[in-house]
């Protein structure tokens, strides 16, 4: 009530009347404009990249020298080399994340011990520290691991791990799940059986979207990767960087286009999963 009493003092008397006289559609137009501006900003550079990739001689302007598939074809070999390295690194990262991260998420969800707060903070630390710092610190401490590619996977594991625990721990802490597991246990199901038939189906959606997220993050990681990658085996973003700095614009554009083609399926899958999760929670 006091709130209502306070209100009248603030606005001038003429203002609301004027506002009411204004046409109704004015504000939707503003918000819609902003939304379409955001969409336009997101799409425009991708379309221009497509244009550059299809242009024979970009230095003569867009479509200078006509349309060609030359660049798209020529960059394919470079793309596949980077792609296989990136996929390999992303899969190793994902596998290690799952093996060490799921028990960690379990500990976060099911135990209440004093050290756990520190551990949670420690898991989130790689997100607070700039990627370059993590990369430089890793390569300064373990330079001997760089050439084998192990340092790269280690770095990716550290920066993606918080995403797994953040996605899975809340679902594991779900009271319904805990009760279900307990019911299964009292009915005689052992740990392995409980995990496979009760826990896993329950966390499936969030686990899957976390896995896709980790794969995408590792696949596109550059800030940290650039400093710890084995230079003889560049990942896709590292070879893209090389093409941007030293290469022809059209070649770089074609390589970027291939990169987009590679990540589209993952992005679509992530979105579908997100929608599934929303539907379920309703």
């Amino acid at each position, binding site marked *: 009530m006091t709130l209502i009493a306070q209100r009248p003092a603030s*606005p001038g008397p003429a203002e609301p009347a004027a506002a009411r006289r204004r046409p109704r559609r004015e*504000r939707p137009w503003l*918000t819609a404009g902003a939304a379409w*501006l*955001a969409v336009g900003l997101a799409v425009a550079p991708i379309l221009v990249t497509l244009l550059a990739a299809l242009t024979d001689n970009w230095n003569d302007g867009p479509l200078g020298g006509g349309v060609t598939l030359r660049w798209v074809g020529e960059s394919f070999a470079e793309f596949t080399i980077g792609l296989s390295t990136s996929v390999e690194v992303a899969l190793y990262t994902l596998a290690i994340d799952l093996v060490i991260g799921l028990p960690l998420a379990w500990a976060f969800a099911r135990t209440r011990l004093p050290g756990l707060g520190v551990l949670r903070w420690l898991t989130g630390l790689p997100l607070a520290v*700039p990627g370059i710092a993590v990369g*430089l610190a890793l390569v*300064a401490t373990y330079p001997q691991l760089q050439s084998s590619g192990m340092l790269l996977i280690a770095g990716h594991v550290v920066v993606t791990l918080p995403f797994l625990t953040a996605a899975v721990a809340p679902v594991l802490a779900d009271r319904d799940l805990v009760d279900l597991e307990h019911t299964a246990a009292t009915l005689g199901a052992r740990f392995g059986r409980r995990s496979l038939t009760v826990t896993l189906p329950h966390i499936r959606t969030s686990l899957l979207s976390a896995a896709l997220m980790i794969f995408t993050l590792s696949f596109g990681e550059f800030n940290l990767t650039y400093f710890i990658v084995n230079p003889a085996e560049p990942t896709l973003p590292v070879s893209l960087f090389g093409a941007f700095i030293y290469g022809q614009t059209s070649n770089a554009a074609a390589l970027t286009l291939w990169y987009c083609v590679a990540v589209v399926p*993952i992005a679509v899958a992530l979105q579908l999963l997100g929608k599934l999760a929303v539907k379920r929670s309703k």
Partner: protein
Amino acid sequence: MSAQAISPSRRQRRRFAPTIPLLAAIPAIALLVLLMVVPLCSFVIRSLTGIDGEFSWGSYQEIFTEPRYRTALFNSVWLAIASTALALLIALPAALHLARLRGRTRTVVDAVLTFPLSLPGVVIGFFIIVMFGRSGLAQAAMTALTGEPGLVLAYAMPGLLLAYLYFQLPRVLGTLRGAAEALDPDLVTVARTLGASRTRVTFTVVLPALKPAIFAATALAIASSLGAYGTVAALSEGFRVLPLDIAEQGTMLQNTRLAGAMSIVLALVSLISTLLNDAAERHMRRGAKPAAATAVAAATGGRTS
């Protein structure tokens, strides 16, 4: 009844649960210690060590006294703030509109807006080059229209600002959209039918409800742009931000002492921004009026005056 049903099961759970998960977490703890704690601690120690192995603040002093590094730090900070402000300016109204979308349009728009999240920073740098670079689309258009090339924006501050905006927009939008969708449409309707103008509803009902999300988005956007390296590495020619200097000191010049000090300063700035946003959010929540009350107050306030 339900409380009675839960409490005994909890007691039993406690008997077998805690030790096993903790044991299972040991590999993760070991890995985090080896790969995060040890390298970062040695980085911190090295940044605090002088040339003869003595304790020294020298590297930190150098960042703040050497004009080159001071400028880079300053550029990093204000570029992060400016691009975040720009992103919020676009994302706030956009999120309100997107929350209203339904059906196929929504699916397509969602896909388009989240796609940039899976692009590495270097690619975003290239986007700016292909749009505004020396042989970019904007240059070609200017040459075609006026006969001479215009200003090349890509490699200096405007290009960097645009690039930062590009990678922040999907992050900020993503954070705001959830809040915009959770906004109870009845509140807006109530305030409107009680006679509050749209502008008034926006400022007294909608924006206050979005405030926590706005702070979260700001913290996220500032942190991600402070640490951005790929984008600037692909773009910048002359315009310095701190990550570029960190990379240069750490690799080419092999000055890990200074690189470490710079990384820590950058991480601290990022931490301060996160803490400030958290504090602001908590302050807001403590002072927050119930949303329904503000909706009514907005309307009646408008009417009685």
